[in-house]
């Protein structure tokens, strides 16, 4: 009877400390490497270029304007500014949002992240809307060069 009791006690005192240490290490690691802007990047396929000159700059203040494709017809399904989705025709609204952001964050850079299959006629009004907000420079989002070690193309 006494022996049984003893065995039970030993089972409960499993030492989790080192496991906890490792788990915390991993959590902190992933906390630091995670991009919290991922919600601003809906799933789309940016242009894949020949000998891409695209560069990566970390830690800049950016507003991503996404043009989400409608299957592969070349039409835009929606335009997403930051976290906000607007219908493809509402360019005045886009101008308002961009100029508002530009006033709040003067150093903000505008990234234009359009799907590779979008027709230029659907990208051009978006560019005009950004210009109308008083922005002269934008960044075009494209894949890095295939030889770039940082490139790990999504499947």
């Amino acid at each position, binding site marked *: 009877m*006494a022996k049984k009791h*003893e065995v039970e*006690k030993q089972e409960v*005192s499993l030492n*989790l400390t080192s*496991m*906890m240490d490792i*788990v915390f290490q*991993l*959590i902190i690691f*992933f*906390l630091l*490497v995670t*991009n919290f802007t*991922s919600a601003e*990047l809906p799933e789309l396929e*940016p*242009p*894949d*270029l*020949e*000998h*891409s*000159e*695209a*560069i*990566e*700059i970390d830690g800049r203040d950016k507003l991503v304007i996404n*043009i989400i494709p409608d299957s592969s017809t070349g039409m835009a399904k929606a335009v997403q500014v930051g976290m906000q989705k607007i219908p493809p025709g509402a360019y005045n609204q886009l101008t308002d949002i961009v100029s508002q952001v530009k006033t709040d964050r003067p150093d903000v850079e505008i990234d234009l*992240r*359009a*799907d*590779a*299959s*979008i*027709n*230029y*006629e659907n990208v*051009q009004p978006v*560019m*005009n809307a950004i*210009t*109308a907000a*008083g*922005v*002269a*420079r*934008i*960044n*075009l*989002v*494209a*894949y*890095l060069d295939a030889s*770039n070690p*940082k*490139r*790990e*193309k*999504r499947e």
Partner: protein
Amino acid sequence: MAEKSKTVRAKGDADHLHDVGKTDTIHHESTRKAARPKKMADLNLTSMLDVCFQLLIFFILTASFAVGEGILPAELPTGQGKASDTEAPEQPIKLFLRSLGGDDVSIQIEGSPTPPRDFRELFSVLQGMQNSPSNPTAPYNADDPVIIKPDGTVKWVHVVNTFNAAIRAKYTNVNFATPNK
């Protein structure tokens, strides 16, 4: 006897074995003393570990979402912004893009009789047109404007590819035009 051996194990020192054998009171006291540190070690970490694993899985899944994407700094097409302030350039290089249906595109350089077949060729033609120490007879300078004029139905990937070819050929003033309808 069973109780005695339990005490010995809990405490684990030979001195105590003697005391236990003498009186019952000491025996009981020593049991309690031995039990106390054991209870302290019994902190239940299970639920904390659950939460930690949840967080870990969340961060693993959300990490590295847009790996491999980069940016190409560009000027915007005609507007009231700074981009249009350049005074009338003498000789812009105009690149026309026409959709040939589907994913195909034709590239044409204004004034050039042979259109480049792909963007690699466009790059070498643009590079050959640029004045440099190794190529002093070329008609264009690196800061001469390059204007990209795509048709409305040209895919965005071709527009960016053209832009990329121009900046790869070290042109510094690459612009977009409005689509010709």
